């Protein structure tokens, strides 16, 4: 048996567990969950309520199968007319007419009018199978979609026949060796209306569209997948203008490469605090703080610095409009407008409640793909909490961060906290959750005292680098952000105007001390002058005395000489012997 032998070989060579062949579904993200796609050559059932995306699922499976994987397909619509389908999918970028003309697609609409049909005894749906068969043969289809079962079977009343024909349909599809997607409506309590389809299909996927807190979320779940391991969670999915995309929020792995490159924060003093170099490229940064502590300014500064380095930035803002943010940043001496005009900076301003968390995520990922930024800022992530619970927001952020990291994008996220009453490092549980995703965590805090409120800044953590443990005073001025050292001296730790007052007091003290020293110096100088004067007086006096003495000595010598001369003359006169 050479066939089994080959199978054995591949088994040992590739995967230790045998899994049957799969084909890519063409639906973004689904193949990650199913580990490869839908079961090849077998029927899969997609069930769900109205408007949950069944037809789209089926059509994407067929259309992308043709355009991306080169598998010809057959699409049988029992609900929508072919013209409507063509129109609907044209807006999603599928030219069904073209595919039909190229003999890649058979698009068929079958109407089943129950009122026209009189049932007079036993029958089967052989006609459908034959029709289906000839369509498959027409283009050599590898993929078949039937949308929807209910519309087909609603034309018939005999349930016993329907059930057996339903089973036969799935078996027939399997016999033909086509990979099929059959859509069906959800039953009241069961996955499907007849409670049978899910047992005959090899793979069952349910689509769900539910509304929580007025926000609709679509979810997809793989109920069963014969012979394969699959993700069992409910995965949020989106329908955007390029089709369905499933977000496997839990299937991301930690495999991104860490960069050694460092990038500036835009605040020189903060760079100094972070080992004089700034953030690692590709790291994620959390800036949390109370209202009005300067979170947006920090993000804007970071973005501005990146633009100055000629890097592209994407700025998601959930609180302000683009022009409002630009105007506000001008007040701290920063003009972001030129960057926007140069195409270095793109804003995406939207209210978080505009759509669901998943939609936000997908929009963000799509924008990242389009714009290809190296720096990304989200201001603030806390605004996402009204539309999702802790776990949802966290998993959404995790996916965003993982995605950014995989592309070496540095991400800065701000978070609004309201722990006004508690101490400097007390944390909200939500913040705890998010912070573990972050590589760097900066905290801003308002501190009240002396009838004023001051901003205090500190680094809570910064993975993989030496960083300052010092608190800094965070000052917003018309020249941007400044981090000032706190006053630490005999008066304790002071900040704000107290720090300034203390500093000016100290400055006064210093001036006074300086003056004192100068005075002493002058005094010394004067004493020196006096001393030198005295010295010169003594010298002068000495010189005078010296002169006098010298004169006297001179007189003595000449007097002696004179007397000697006199003695000589006397001797000469006395004719003394020589």
């Amino acid at each position, binding site marked *: 048996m050479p066939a089994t032998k080959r199978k054995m070989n591949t088994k040992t060579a590739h995967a230790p567990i045998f899994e049957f062949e799969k084909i890519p579904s063409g639906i973004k993200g689904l193949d990650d969950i199913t580990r490869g796609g839908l079961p090849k050559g077998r029927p899969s059932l997609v069930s769900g309520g109205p408007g949950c995306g069944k037809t789209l699922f089926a059509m994407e499976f067929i259309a992308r199968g043709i355009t991306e994987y080169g598998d010809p397909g057959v699409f049988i619509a029992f609900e929508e007319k072919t013209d409507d389908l063509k129109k609907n999918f044209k807006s999603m970028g599928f030219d069904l007419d073209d595919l039909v003309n190229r003999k890649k697609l058979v698009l068929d609409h079958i109407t*089943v009018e129950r009122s*026209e049909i009189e*049932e*007079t*005894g036993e029958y*089967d749906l052989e*006609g459908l199978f*034959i029709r289906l068969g000839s369509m498959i043969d027409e283009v050599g289809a590898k993929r078949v979609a039937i949308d929807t079962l209910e519309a087909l079977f609603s034309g*018939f009343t005999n349930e016993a026949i329907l059930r057996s024909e339903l089973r036969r349909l799935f078996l027939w599809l399997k016999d033909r060796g086509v990979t099929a997607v059959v859509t069906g409506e959800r039953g009241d309590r069961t996955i499907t209306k007849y409670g049978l389809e899910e047992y005959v299909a090899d793979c069952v996927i349910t689509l769900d569209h539910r509304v929580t807190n007025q926000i609709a979320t679509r979810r997809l779940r793989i109920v069963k997948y014969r012979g394969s391991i699959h993700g069992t969670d409910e995965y949020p999915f989106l329908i955007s203008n390029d089709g369905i995309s499933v977000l496997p929020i839990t299937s991301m792995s930690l495999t991104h490469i860490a960069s050694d490159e460092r990038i500036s924060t835009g605040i020189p003093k903060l760079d100094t605090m972070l080992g004089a170099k700034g953030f690692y490229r590709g790291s994620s940064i959390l800036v949390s703080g109370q209202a009005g502590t300067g979170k947006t300014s920090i993000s804007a500064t970071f973005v501005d610095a990146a633009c100055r380095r000629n890097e592209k930035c994407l700025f998601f803002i959930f609180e302000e409009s683009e022009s409002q943010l630009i105007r506000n940043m001008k007040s701290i001496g920063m003009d972001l407008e030129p960057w926007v005009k140069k195409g270095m900076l793109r804003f995406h301003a939207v209210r978080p409640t505009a759509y669901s968390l998943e939609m936000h995520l997908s929009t963000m990922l799509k924008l990242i793909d389009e714009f290809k930024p190296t720096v990304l800022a989200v201001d603030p992530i806390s605004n996402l909490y009204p539309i999702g619970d802790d776990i949802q927001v966290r998993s959404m952020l995790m996916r965003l961060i993982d995605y950014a990291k995989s592309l070496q994008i540095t991400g800065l996220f701000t978070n609004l906290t309201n722990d006004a009453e508690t101490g400097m490092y007390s944390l909200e549980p939500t913040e705890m959750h998010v912070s573990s995703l972050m590589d760097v965590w900066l905290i801003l805090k308002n501190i009240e005292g002396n009838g004023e409120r001051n901003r205090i800044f500190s680094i809570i953590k910064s993975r993989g680098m030496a960083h300052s443990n010092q608190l800094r005073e965070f000052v917003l001025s018309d020249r941007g952000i400044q981090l000032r050292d706190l006053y630490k001296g005999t008066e304790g730790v002071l900040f704000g105007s107290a720090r300034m007052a203390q500093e000016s007091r100290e400055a006064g003290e210093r001036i006074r001390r300086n003056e004192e020293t100068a005075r002493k110096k002058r005094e010394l100088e004067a004493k020196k002058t006096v001393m030198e004067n005295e010295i010169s007086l003594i010298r002068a006096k000495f010189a005078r005395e010296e002169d006098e003495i010298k004169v006297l000595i001179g007189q003595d010598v000449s007097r002696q000489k004179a007397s000697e001369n006199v003695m000589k003359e006397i001797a000469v006169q006395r004719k003394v012997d020589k």
Partner: protein
Amino acid sequence: MAASKSMKKKVSSKAIEPGDVTAEYEAALENRKTEHYVLRLYIAGNNLRSQVAVENVKKICDEYLKDRYDLEVIDIYQDRTKNPVDLILAAPTLIRKLPLPLRRVIGDMTRKEKVLVGLDLISRV
């Protein structure tokens, strides 16, 4: 057939008023008695069900449409060209091509009244 006879009397005794749908229907039903029928029976292969269906249809035609019908029996396995036109899903399917409108009857035609209703040969009521 007592019911249809009494209806016939009713219809003939009364002139049809415009907009009287019931009366129009009754009149149309009356016309059926003389109109020529073109029928097409689709079967899937030569199995027992197909045979029963063919026999039943023939019996009904001979009884109700004597000398005024054409019946074409098509095996959808043999002749695939006509299937797309008539959109056959179920087999057997009997289609009344003429008189219009198109009528469809599915099953092995064992329930005679249903077949007659489907072909407008007796009243639906």
